[in-house]
């Protein structure tokens, strides 16, 4: 559990992989190969980003880990046990938010618990706490269409927090959000993870975002997706978040990743 806090995680304790991808392949009907033998270990309490050119199968890999898609080859292990479908230890945050437009913020956030049969009073109390955690207190009885894009994604995040899953799977969570909101959101996410101590698997196509939030960045090649390189930014995230964006290590890391990804554009 030493690796739970992002700063401590840099010490590279012996790998304690909560999630492991073993030779995961995905061939879609029509012989489109999205993933070709991907092996990755996801360390406990760390944030791992899947980064790569569009169409490289990042989201496919995330959905396979979530148990929403069955891979055509290989397997995902969670705590050493193979994945057969979605499970209570994983919670998903969707790129398009996936909020129920007919339900209030409160019901949306409590939805995972509602499906598990948690009594109304109890699940609403948990939901209210999670809504406050993502700084949306006061909007419990609003409907999604009354909220801005950034606020909607906060609801999506609160819903994932409410089920208290150990592993958070985030599929380009900030892609539909404007740049200012996105930056604020990244900072909030880091602050939140310091308290919540989750294992996070994060899909993005933004290099800056990946370097800013990640302990480990997995670079995937263009289709068919393979692990092309694993980068560990090793940034000191204690204290002021704003400072990170000016750090030498941060800038070097962005450059390093850009040099790898550039190749896929030139081909």
């Amino acid at each position: 559990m030493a690796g739970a806090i992002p700063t401590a995680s840099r010490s590279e304790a012996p790998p304690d992989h909560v999630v492991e991808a073993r030779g995961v392949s995905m061939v879609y009907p029509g012989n489109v190969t999205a993933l070709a033998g991907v092996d990755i270990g996801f360390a406990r309490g760390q944030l791992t980003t899947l980064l790569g050119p569009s169409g490289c199968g990042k989201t496919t890999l995330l959905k396979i880990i979530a148990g929403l898609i069955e891979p055509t080859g290989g397997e995902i292990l969670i705590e050493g046990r193979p994945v057969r479908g979605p499970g209570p230890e994983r919670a998903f945050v969707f790129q398009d938010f996936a909020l129920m437009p007919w339900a209030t913020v409160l019901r949306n956030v409590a939805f995972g618990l509602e499906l598990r049969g948690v009594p109304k009073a109890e699940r609403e109390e948990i939901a209210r706490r999670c809504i406050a955690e993502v700084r949306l207190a006061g909007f419990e009885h609003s409907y999604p269409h009354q909220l801005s894009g950034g606020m909607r994604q906060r609801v999506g995040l609160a819903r994932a927090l409410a089920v208290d899953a150990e592993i958070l799977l985030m599929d380009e969570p900030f892609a539909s959000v404007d740049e200012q909101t996105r930056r604020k959101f990244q900072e909030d996410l880091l602050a939140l993870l310091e308290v919540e101590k989750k294992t996070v698997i994060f899909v993005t196509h933004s290099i800056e975002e990946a370097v800013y939030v990640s302990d480990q960045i997995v670079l995937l090649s263009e289709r068919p997706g393979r692990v092309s390189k694993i980068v560990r930014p090793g940034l000191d995230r204690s204290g002021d978040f704003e400072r990170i964006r000016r750090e030498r290590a941060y800038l070097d890391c962005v450059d390093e990743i850009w040099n790898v990804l550039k190749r896929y554009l030139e081909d």
Partner: protein
Amino acid sequence: MPERTSGTAGPLAERRSPTIDEIAPAAAAGAGSQRRGSSPLLRLLSVVLVLGLWEWGGRIPISLSFPTCSQTLAALATMLADGTLLAAYADTIRPLIIGLVLCGVGAAAAGIAMGLSRTIEWFGLPVFVILQAAPSAAIVPVITYVYGIGLAAKVFAVVLLSAPVIVLNAYKGIRHTSPSLLDMSRSFLASRRQQVTKIVLPSASGLIFAGMRLGAAQGFTGVILAELLITPTGVGDLITYYRSVADYPKMFASILSIIVIASVTITLLQKIEETVFRPELRQA
């Protein structure tokens, strides 16, 4: 490098964020005011305009069989006072209500079943696609062979016209459930049953209700067609009778009455949907 990124992203984001934050509420407010604010006056104006044109057309006169608006309204008042209209509607409303209740429950259920099960879809979809495409007025007389000329024939006519649109709308509503909401419910461990009751049905409810409104309108057509073509009773009979005796104001009054009642019914259905079933529509 991050400075440069923020430099290029800044203005872009500034241009983009107001579209999300301001235009959406503005559009919502606009839709709200359209429903409540200026609209009743405009609607009244358009009604007055149409009635005025009618009065003017009747006075030219366009045709000897085209009464003025005032003659028609006077005839309507007479028919209301002497009870003819009420008696006729007693005949017309019963099969209409029976037919619409049957469709509201049965056809909606059939559409939902078709949306949920491939087998039922394979079995049922062609029937309703053909029924919707078929010119129903041509089928209505055939009903007589099976159901005679009584209540059953009228109910059947209502169902025949109303069911296809209700079935097909419910079916489309189910099939158009957002795949991302389905993924969401699966990832949060919904059972198939929970998926249907908590995601699929609520998300289809908009199209299901729209189908019911269209189906109700079709039901009015069905019952009047039956009364014109097979069973000379009710409002359809009033129209036929007054035409045959050339009492055009009363004939037009009968037609006007059914149009008004149908419109009011459909509007009422919409109000019920908004207030009872869809709380998210109420909050602008």
